[in-house]
């Protein structure tokens, strides 16, 4: 269980206690229209063998967080702040070359759209083998090929020795995503980041892919970050859940905490918005009013305040003061100005009966 969450930064140079530890991460992009604060003070931890689900609407900073962990903002105009510790090594201030060596070997990513993530000009097998040889310079071509075929078999691609020489477009959507997973896992990474891995897939294929990811996790014991907007997928696979809004963490806790005892009005809104397969809702859906904020002009105070039904309860505090992430019970934190008692009452009386 991840537990470190001492309100943002905990003594900047303290040694990390978890396998992956992100502290007060900031990713800002200077643009012609102003500074886009995609991620603005995000902290979380993740242990090996655990899965963290990051949920949020488009533009909430989910993918940018993942890219920051992988060091993909290095050499761009993005301004990075905070710390990322992976297995005792700090990544934000590390050199681009050092992070490149980790990328693909110790940490790997599965992208949303496997067709555009695979190179159309190279054979799928060759692309996977390249990644393997890159991080294992002593390995011969034929050994890399054997390893690739083994991985393709492991992720459930039939006739892997034949499919090795196929191109990306010759694979179906589900098979392509399997090939992407094989590519990500070829170097046995201990951290796997999956950015909307099933969004482009049909539900039956999605079920196969999630099943595969769970299987592989129990076999290799890797840590997984899964980024998605589908609360069902999160409920299925995640141990911990991080709810992001406007580049910050709104709520963070175990999956049970967030689904059964959600604390943040935004989390209530998300749960009230989803249509459910498992029951008929007799009432209308309760959508969150308004639209997600622009990250150039994030509302002052709590970013959620213009859409929050309960903001007036705090006077103008929600407009003026940014709520910090505070721990409700160990392992469950929320960034909201409402008092514990208020949140408990509102959730019990108004929210829970409608979910």
């Amino acid at each position, binding site marked *: 269980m991840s537990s470190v969450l001492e309100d943002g930064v905990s003594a900047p140079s303290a040694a990390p206690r978890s396998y992956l530890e992100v502290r007060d991460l900031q990713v800002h992009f200077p643009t012609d229209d102003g500074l886009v604060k995609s991620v603005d003070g995000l902290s979380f931890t993740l242990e090996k063998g655990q899965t963290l689900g990051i949920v949020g*609407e488009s533009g909430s900073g989910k993918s940018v967080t993942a890219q920051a962990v992988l060091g993909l903002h290095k050499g761009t105009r993005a301004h990075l702040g905070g710390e990322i510790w992976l297995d005792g090594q700090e990544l934000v201030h590390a050199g681009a070359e050092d992070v490149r060596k980790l990328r693909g070997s110790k940490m790997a990513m599965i992208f949303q759209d496997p067709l555009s993530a695979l190179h159309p000009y190279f054979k799928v097998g060759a692309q996977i083998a390249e990644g393997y040889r890159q991080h294992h310079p002593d390995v011969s071509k034929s050994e890399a090929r054997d390893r690739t075929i083994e991985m393709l078999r492991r992720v459930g691609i039939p006739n892997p020795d034949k499919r090795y020489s196929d191109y990306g477009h010759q694979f179906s959507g589900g098979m392509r995503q399997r090939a992407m997973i094989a590519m990500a896992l070829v170097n046995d990474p201990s951290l796997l980041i999956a950015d909307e891995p099933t969004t482009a897939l049909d539900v*039956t294929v999605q079920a196969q892919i999630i099943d595969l990811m769970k299987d592989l996790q129990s076999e290799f014991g890797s840590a997984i970050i899964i980024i998605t907007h589908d*609360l069902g997928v999160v409920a299925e696979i995640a141990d911990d859940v991080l709810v992001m809004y406007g580049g910050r963490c709104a709520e963070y806790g175990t999956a049970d905490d967030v689904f059964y005892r959600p604390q943040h009005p935004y989390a209530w809104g998300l749960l009230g918005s989803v249509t459910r397969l498992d029951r008929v809702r007799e009432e209308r*859906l309760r*959508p969150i009013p308004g*639209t997600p904020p622009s990250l150039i002009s994030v509302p002052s105070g709590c970013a959620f305040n213009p859409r929050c039904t309960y903001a007036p309860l705090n006077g103008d505090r929600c407009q003026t003061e940014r709520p910090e992430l505070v721990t409700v019970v160990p392992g469950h934190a929320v960034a909201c100005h409402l008092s514990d008692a208020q949140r408990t009452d509102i959730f019990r009386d108004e929210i829970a009966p409608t979910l």
Partner: protein
Amino acid sequence: MTTSIEQPAGASAGGGVPLLEVRSVQKYFPVTRGIFIKKQVGAVQAVDGVSLTVAAGETLGVVGESGCGKSTLGRLVNRLLEPTDGQVIFEGQDITHVSTGDLRPLRRDIQMIFQDPFSSLNPRHNVGTIIGTALKLQKISPPGGDKKRVQELLELVGLNPEHYNRYPHQFSGGQRQRIGIARAVALQPKLIVADEPVSALDVSIQAQVINLLEDLQREFNLAYLFIAHDLSVVRHISDRVAVMYLGKVMEMAGRDALYERAMHPYTHALMSAVPVPDPAKEKARARILLQGDLPSPLNPPPACRFHTRCWKAQEVCKTQEPPLLQIAPGHQVACHFPEERGVTA
């Protein structure tokens, strides 16, 4: 909730003709080879013998995986495509092969909402033009003028009427989808074909648009042919649901009957694959994992099209096609071995 729900399948409010009737409609897209001399080498059997009815004020949900022909079906219904075979009957009138010119009056009654709010609005037209064009083409002069009518429509779908002169890029995805909806209801149609109207939107915006669609239905007694891949959205909005697989309807039933007592193995598999936002329930659920991928509609499996992935398939499934039979009132299934037990999702 939607109005006029508890109608038996196919019966319209007056017990007469349904608003829309589709009779074993077929659409094959030819596949050709050769540059100068085109030779047909095959056909994509996108929709192959689908029959269904939609009553006035009713929502029929159509679900299925990509490539099952649900979007093609929608385009056949509003005649953006001409069927290869079969009949499309709207209000008792056969519109299967009506010429493009004669289609115009029909467009007043059947409208469409598209999936992608970005590519379905002309970026060089302002909102007033986008919504007002339909009025002009149909030579409707609303009292107070086109502009007033468009502003009423904008207000109806929850947009600011002042934004009449804005262009699509100045709106967010959810707002654009509202513009698309305003355009669809501008002519007060009787049937709207909604092809994945909410799948490009964020969850919180999705809920807003679903509520809007329900409000409009109640206000104008609209019928929806609601095409989606998301089974939970379809459960929320539909009165009846048709499940399609490779161009054929596998099962069709009232919403509750389908989601609580599904009989076709494919429907079971589809439902068990959808994750529900409830960790404890999710861990307790048994999942039917289908093997392999969807076969190509270019060369679909013979007889029952699902037999290659079905765990109950017998010899007969490979040789004889199961007809779509009514097993319970309003509940049609095309399977040799329909499930007996009811499942809950």
